């Protein structure tokens, strides 16, 4: 059984205009998204800013309310749960945020930050047990327990992210939603945090939903990857296969746009014209068609391509998925 199952999830935000705040339009931040995560698995979620990836992550932990659809955690529907019931389920899923500066309370010591989770869920029965557990947690994320009495501002970005991870680990969750956990960090520190997350997964069998915009990082850490565009998943595949042979033209462009260190083979870069359209007025038919290099009319502007299995294990929302020429290995002409 999968650990997390998301079915037809929609998160729509009303856009208010005018003095009477009437709702005229909605932003479809997440539109009809379905996927699942197995225990101990890392699923990557990539997309450009505004594509809805953060909203999707937050909806799963119920930090934003889904408009419709269902979220199952270990087979149990948590979509509409609230109060004490939801709180007790929150032991199973935790979140790590992008900004290690903004996500820790500056007036609490590390011990208080990590201990708060233990107190809320009443996980330790004595003071000494609490203290022991906190030092264990700090050690497990590579921090010296003697720092427990310090405040967040005394730490570097990478260390703060470790504190955030220790806080998430305190309740022994089965799933952690990581929302851009390394993008605010220095390049040399990013690798430390990525390695730490992978080690913790090995040790505790935690599953991750890893939200990021950096494809190379996502490919490295994930078993499977989903690509999001304008609130919809346009491709979902095993990580290595996705990068080697992308099935959706947007994924192809995204991969080709990543500047690469390797100077040996110059790849042909697909430069997409224009910007990501507004999610208030998404294009008709396939939402990607105005920027798509292989769009065919009128089909692509009229008919929405449903997500279909274009090759075993790979799902793509494109009318022409599977018939694309691989471009990643091509030499520049």
């Amino acid at each position, binding site marked *: 059984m999968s650990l997390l199952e998301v079915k037809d999830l929609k998160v729509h935000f009303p856009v208010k205009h005018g003095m009477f705040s009437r709702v005229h339009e909605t932003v479809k931040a997440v539109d009809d998204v379905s996927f699942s995560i197995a225990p101990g698995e890392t699923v990557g979620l990539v997309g*450009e*800013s505004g594509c809805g990836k953060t909203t999707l992550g937050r909806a799963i932990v119920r930090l934003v309310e889904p408009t419709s659809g269902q979220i199952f955690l270990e087979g149990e529907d948590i979509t509409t749960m609230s109060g004490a019931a939801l709180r007790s389920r929150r032991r199973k899923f935790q979140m790590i945020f992008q900004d290690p500066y903004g996500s820790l309370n500056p007036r609490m010591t590390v011990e208080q930050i990590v201990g708060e989770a233990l107190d809320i869920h009443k996980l330790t029965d004595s003071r000494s047990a609490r203290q022991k557990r906190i030092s264990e947690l700090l050690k497990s994320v590579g921090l010296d327990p003697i720092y427990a009495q310090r405040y967040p501002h005394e730490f*570097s970005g*990478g*260390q703060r992210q470790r504190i955030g991870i220790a806080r998430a680990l305190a309740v022994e969750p089965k799933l952690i939603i990581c929302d851009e956990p390394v993008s605010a960090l*220095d*390049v*040399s*520190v*990013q*690798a*430390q945090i*990525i*390695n730490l997350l*992978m080690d913790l997964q090995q040790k505790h069998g935690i599953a991750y939903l890893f939200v990021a*915009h950096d*494809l*190379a*990082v996502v*490919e*490295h*850490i994930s078993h499977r990857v989903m690509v999001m565009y304008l609130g919809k998943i346009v491709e979902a595949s095993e990580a290595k296969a996705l*990068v*080697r042979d992308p099935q959706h033209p947007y994924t192809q*462009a*995204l*991969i*080709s*746009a*990543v*500047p*690469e*260190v*390797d*100077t040996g083979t110059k790849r042909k*870069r697909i*430069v*997409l014209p224009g*910007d*990501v359209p507004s999610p208030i007025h998404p294009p008709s038919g396939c939402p990607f068609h105005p920027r798509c290099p292989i769009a065919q009319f009128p089909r692509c502007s009229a008919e929405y391509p449903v997500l279909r299995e274009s090759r075993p294990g790979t799902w793509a929302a494109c009318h022409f998925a599977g018939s694309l020429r691989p471009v*990643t290995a091509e030499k520049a002409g």
Partner: protein
Amino acid sequence: MNLLEIKNLKMDFGKNADALRAIDDVSFAIGTGETVCLVGESGCGKSVTALSIARLVPTPPANYVGGEIWLNGRDVLKMSARELQQIRGGVVSYVFQDPGASLNPVFRVGNQIKESLKLHRPEKANDAEVIRLLKLVGIPAPESRIRNYPFEMSGGMQQRVMIAMALASEPKLLVADEPTTALDVTIQAQILDLLSELKQRLGMAILLITHNLGIVGDMADRVAVMYAGQIVELAPAKELLRRPLHPYAKALMNSVPKLHGDADRLSAIPGNVPRIGNFPKGCRFYPRCPSARPECADTMPELVEVEPNRWVRCLYAKELTK
């Protein structure tokens, strides 16, 4: 003669006992039409170095302690305020990381570009020239766009406006300080393409500041790697990416995950980037260096030429090339 030559530049923040050395003995040159990348992590001094070229770092708090900055045959550090005004924009233009914050929100973009024209090419300060510039940087329908305010444009479009503004004065050197960091990858690809195309067409030199080694591979002729206020390696870009010599450059390359990479585990650099004021006494990388030896703690290495055109700041530079 090189277009830009920085020699042994030293800069402090603060005075006397409180002085913190932000740039320590930085030297490099840029030839006409060349692209040089300055690579390093936050706080390594790359932006301050770049701003120094037009003496844009306010003094105080900054204090130029030593060195020379030769731009177009003249030492910037000895220029009068009037002369500085001429080279700012006239010889060197800047494009910054966050176009949203760099543009004035209450003026139409057309007028902002015209301002640059008025200062440097007053005979051309008209709508037609603004439209030509916007067309040059690939903005569709420039005739209507000149009346836009910055908030009416996307991040990519705003960055194009910034580039148009920088180009208005026809500079010989364009300094781009993390020009694509705030942008999405697909937009980043557009802007990088635009920069290389403009460089070809206009023959200007580019100093590109980035922390992304991938961008170096795409854009640079030569690259300078900075760490804690110093250049630790200076080399042709292809050479450096293929065979980095300095332990920091090497470690940085290995710690970045690569697309199509097969490494199970990234080789992370232990510890943190030292903050200004806390730089180690000897080699600044030695506490994190995998091949550090006891001498590294006390002796500050010099930047030495280990191979033609390859400079490395390491006590054991000669051994690194083997």
